[in-house]
């Protein structure tokens, strides 16, 4: 057993710690078409996705609702069996060896706490201790670390039902880490949290990744999570991987256009220049879109020459807009 494990932890498998080869998940969906009649049709929740994640990387996994994010996570954690393709996490086929994998991964479901509602927080940790058979010294060390970094000290004796959402999320993250998982899956870890809790959670995850080189896969709607945590981001839409690369690249992909915001002396009809088009007018302020690859200088010069210009600024597209535009483009194409 040990020699097998050693063989798996060579550098090649570290580079492909998580590996998906053309993984598919097809659901049979029944749609009601009448009182008792229904039609079956196939939905490809995940459509031939391939990627690898090296040990110790922190990856953001984003996409709109129903794009296939959680289906992917469910396959990676062994909850769902893929309909096709090959999937390995730490050399383990998740759906076949679910319980063996379970000891090596940690999962945090954003809106479903796994903590015991009516019991003090510490009781849930004691259960983890015994259920995962964590050696005592290891357990104490990990617990102390989590308590310190996530500031759980005063909360340990409080029944979970009395914790705020942010406190509970911190509690859940700690619970998922007591058994030293090599991979941590986080499903919307900052959803609904206050600003301070968000900051704490992000700091903690950054440290965890840096110090323990825990591999982290994170789904989120909050792109600032990704901006602050992940160098690599994967975008999934309609079950397909539409982007896999650095966050900066995501900017470029979506940065088809930049926006020039112009303040004029007074309200005027939309500015008429061939280098850009007006997308919005609000009193004396006008928004003009122009290709991201163009320099703003000639455009500004033209407008300054022909219109009574008071002030101007250039806006880079924010990542939310980029992503939403990506989806809008997909929908229309």
């Amino acid at each position, binding site marked *: 057993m040990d020699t097998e494990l050693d063989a798996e932890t060579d550098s090649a498998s570290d580079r492909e710690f998580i590996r998906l080869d053309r993984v598919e998940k097809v659901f049979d969906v029944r749609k009601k078409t009448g009182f008792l009649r229904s039609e079956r049709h196939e939905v490809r929740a995940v459509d031939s996705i391939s990627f690898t994640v090296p040990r110790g990387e922190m990856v953001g996994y984003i996409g709109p609702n129903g794009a296939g994010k959680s289906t992917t996570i469910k396959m990676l954690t*062994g909850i769902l069996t893929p309909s096709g393709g090959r999937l390995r996490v730490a050399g383990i086929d998740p759906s076949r060896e679910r319980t063996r994998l379970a000891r090596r991964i940690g999962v945090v479901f954003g809106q479903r706490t796994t903590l015991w509602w009516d019991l003090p927080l510490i009781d849930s940790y004691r259960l983890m201790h015994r259920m995962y058979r964590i050696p005592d010294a290891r357990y104490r060390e990990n617990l102390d670390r989590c308590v310190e970094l996530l500031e759980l000290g005063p909360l340990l004796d409080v029944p979970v039902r009395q914790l705020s959402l942010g406190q509970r999320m911190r509690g859940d993250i700690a619970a998922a880490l007591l058994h030293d998982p090599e991979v941590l899956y986080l499903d919307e870890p900052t959803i609904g949290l206050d600003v301070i809790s968000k900051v704490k959670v992000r700091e903690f995850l950054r440290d965890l990744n840096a110090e323990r080189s825990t591999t982290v896969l994170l789904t989120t709607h909050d792109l600032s999570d990704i901006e602050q945590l992940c160098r690599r981001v994967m975008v999934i839409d309609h079950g397909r991987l539409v982007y896999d690369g650095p966050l900066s690249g995501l900017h470029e992909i979506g940065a088809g256009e930049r926006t020039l915001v112009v303040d004029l002396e007074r309200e005027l009809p939309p500015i008429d220049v061939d280098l850009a088009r007006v997308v919005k007018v609000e009193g004396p302020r006008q928004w003009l879109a122009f290709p991201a690859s163009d320099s703003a200088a000639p455009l500004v010069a033209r407008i300054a020459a022909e219109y009574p210009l008071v002030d101007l600024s250039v806006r880079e597209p924010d990542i939310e807009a980029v992503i939403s535009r990506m989806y809008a483009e997909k929908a229309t194409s």
Partner: protein
Amino acid sequence: MAEPSRLADGLRAYRLIAAMWIRSTMAYRASFAMTVVGQFVGTGLDFAAILLMFSQVDALGGYTLPEVAFLYGLSGAAFGLADLVIGSTDKLGRRVRDGTLDTLLVRPAPVLAQVAADRFALRRVGRITQGLLVLGYALVSLDISWTPLKALMIPAMMLSGAGIFAAVFVAGAAFQFVAQDASEVQNSFTFGGTTLLQYPPSIFAQDLVRGVTFVLPLAFVNWLPALYVLGRPYPLDLPEWVAFLPPLVAVACCALAGMAWRVGLRSYRSTGS
């Protein structure tokens, strides 16, 4: 991966989770006490109905009150035991619907053990107690010519009966993977089953008795072995040795239910719903 270690893992996880639920329940002691009493009285209503019947008649289907109480007590205690240990599986449909089953699937323990221990309800000892009290009344009132074998059959019946009911619970839970709102179907076999067994087989139609002997073998919970203890004729002209089959029937039922559970869980993991 060997089966014994999985079983040990399951039992261990069950014990850990059940202990957590007991602690949770004890957070509201007064409420717990009230629900134990409630369970005790609620189960007692069935027997109250039987007492009401016997306030009007002296025998039902040829059976006296102590004899019916004997059947009632055995069935009630066996069912109560199964309900205590594994009755929570009837909530599986809800977990599938709200998606919380997934949180159990990422733990290093068999799902069935986790589902069975989920919301472990110690208040169900109220049902067992009530069954045992009625059984006690029956044993005191009946004039049975005891043999060591007959005496041994009483605890054996309770354990095998609990095993048979446990199998019905698990099979019903497996069905909820497919039909999440159908926990009532499970109820008709579990709660309905124990209600049926509280009355003597002689009052039911032959086809019904045949059904619960050969198809869904509830008759082995108490009817057949109890009739042996009471020295009464068997239904359907069955031979005498069927009275000693309950342990085997229980094992077979549990094996089948385990298979049904696996099929159900596999279908959940391939459909996600």
